[in-house]
């Protein structure tokens, strides 16, 4: 066993600091930071000279827990990784297991997964921008954007039966089909979202205070961002047009016409602009997907993968056996390992699954985009003002469930 003091904080005792610097503790429960993260700062006056980010306050053993449950039982746990965009995690996990099994879901299922993923991206960015604006004292914008999010939550509630934690996908399919008048509900919700977004845009984008708080703060160069494994809006703000949806299209993303917004400066303002534009692109994708949405089944036809319909289970012995085996033992992918990446709200969400041929994953690893972003946080806040930490921290959109799992 290692010695305990080998693991304690590095040089954070006051004695070793030279004159004029002081240690400042931010968090874990800090007024202006959503999420539970502790930042230890050394400051000279108002300037940050060094920073150490301590995480782990929401570590809840996701990976260990999932090694002890069946594949489909993992789905509700994946909801709670990035709880601001739960569908993307659901979809990423289902895709990873399907890749492991070498199966493909019906076209309608793929379209619905795309639609729900994009709704999740919308809620993610709405929350991020809204909370960021609130922390910078633009309270009205927070209400506008949360109201827009509320419309989307009602939509996801109607589809999946849950506002935030829907557990919508299963290996090889979905829990249920879209409600019959989904297209109309989505159109109405988008009308409201677009209106609130444009209101927020008018209040924020050319607002002197907001601009000054974001512009040239939390700056990171393209090379540093790549070195820190940044993905998502934070990487795109530096000018790298990397998006998993375009680079390695999964589901049916290659059938839609959408743009990847990129920034040029790599600062908080660019990240804000990228997020605002991505929301518009997400709505574009959903509208195209709804126009193309094919009819048909939503689940894989093989009863060793998805549960048979209830009528079959009641009347047919094979279906009953399949139901029993699937419920008790779960789906059994072959031995092997896969990595499946999807574009989450904050960047690449990767699922690395090792199967030993049984109904439970031997190893389930999530590549959390926030983890890399928060690892780069000290680099982004060094040299800036203490007040800039708030905007930088808000714009990297740290989500505890995903960061610490």
């Amino acid at each position, binding site marked *: 066993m290692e010695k305990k003091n080998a693991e304690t904080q590095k040089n954070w005792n006051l004695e070793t600091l030279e004159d004029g610097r002081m240690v400042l503790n931010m968090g*874990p429960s800090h007024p*202006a930071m959503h999420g539970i993260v502790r930042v230890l700062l050394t400051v000279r006056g108002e300037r940050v000279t060094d920073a150490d980010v301590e995480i782990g306050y929401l570590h809840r*053993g996701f990976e260990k*827990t999932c090694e002890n449950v069946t594949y489909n039982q993992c789905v509700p746990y994946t909801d709670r990784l990035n709880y601001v965009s739960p569908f993307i995690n659901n979809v990423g996990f289902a895709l990873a297991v399907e890749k492991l099994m070498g199966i493909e879901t019906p076209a309608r299922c793929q379209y619905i997964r795309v639609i729900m993923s994009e709704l999740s991206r919308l809620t993610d960015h709405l*929350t991020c921008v809204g909370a960021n604006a609130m922390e910078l004292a633009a309270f009205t914008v927070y209400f506008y954007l*949360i109201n827009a999010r509320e419309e989307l939550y009602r939509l996801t509630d109607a589809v999946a039966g849950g*506002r935030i*934690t829907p557990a919508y996908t299963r290996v090889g399919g979905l829990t249920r089909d879209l409600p019959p008048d989904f297209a109309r509900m989505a159109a109405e919700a988008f009308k409201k979202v677009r209106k609130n977004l444009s209101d927020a845009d008018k209040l924020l984008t050319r607002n002197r205070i907001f601009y000054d708080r974001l512009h040239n703060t939390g700056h990171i160069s393209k090379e540093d961002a790549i070195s820190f494994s940044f993905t998502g809006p934070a990487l795109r703000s530096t000018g790298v047009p990397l998006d998993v949806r375009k680079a390695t299209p999964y589901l049916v993303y290659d059938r839609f016409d959408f743009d990847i917004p990129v920034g040029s400066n790599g600062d908080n303002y660019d990240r804000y602009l990228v997020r605002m534009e991505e929301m518009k692109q997400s709505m574009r994708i959903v509208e195209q997907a709804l126009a193309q949405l094919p009819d048909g089944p939503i689940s894989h036809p093989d009863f060793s993968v998805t549960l048979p319909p209830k009528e079959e289970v009641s009347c047919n012995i094979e279906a009953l056996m399949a139901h029993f085996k699937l419920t008790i033992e779960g789906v059994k992918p072959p031995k092997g390992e896969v990595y499946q990446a999807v574009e989450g709200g904050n960047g690449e969400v990767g699922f690395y699954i090792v199967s030993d041929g049984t109904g439970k994953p031997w190893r389930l690893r999530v590549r959390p985009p926030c983890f890399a972003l928060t690892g780069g946080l000290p680099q982004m806040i060094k040299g800036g003002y203490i007040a800039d930490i708030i905007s930088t921290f808000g714009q990297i959109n740290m989500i*505890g469930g995903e960061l610490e799992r």
Partner: protein
Amino acid sequence: MGLETIFGHSYLTTRLDAAVNWGRKYSFFQYPFVTACCGMEYMSVFASAYDIARFGAEYPRFSPRQADVLFVVGTVNEKLAPVLKRVYDQMCEPKWVVSFGVCATSGGFYDNYATVQGIDKIIPVDIYIPGCPPRPEAILDALIKLQEKVSKESVLDRKYK
């Protein structure tokens, strides 16, 4: 309240109870100790669609010393437990604790090495809200239940705690 020390158990105190509790229950300053997913629903209930301000709990104070109600919103793990305890200890009497969501209540479906199986292992709790996460209606319901509880308290109860 300094009044109860002056008046003691006189007939005035019961009327004082009613007046003080009425004031207390409609002016909760909350401290949202937001850790996880439930925070999204807390944001919803706080925004204009559900508007918790209608029930007199308008103002979240992000300082424990200015807060009356501690909302523990989300999972608390062993690493966070001392922080929660310290936040609770920093709050001034009278104080109440709402356990928001199933993780704070019992650990939820996270039963493993990292999580605390309910915040009542750390601090006393007044109201538990079930749900993962609870719907906004459930939160408002819990707030009303807490108001009922507060209205039945005596102002002398908490003095010697």
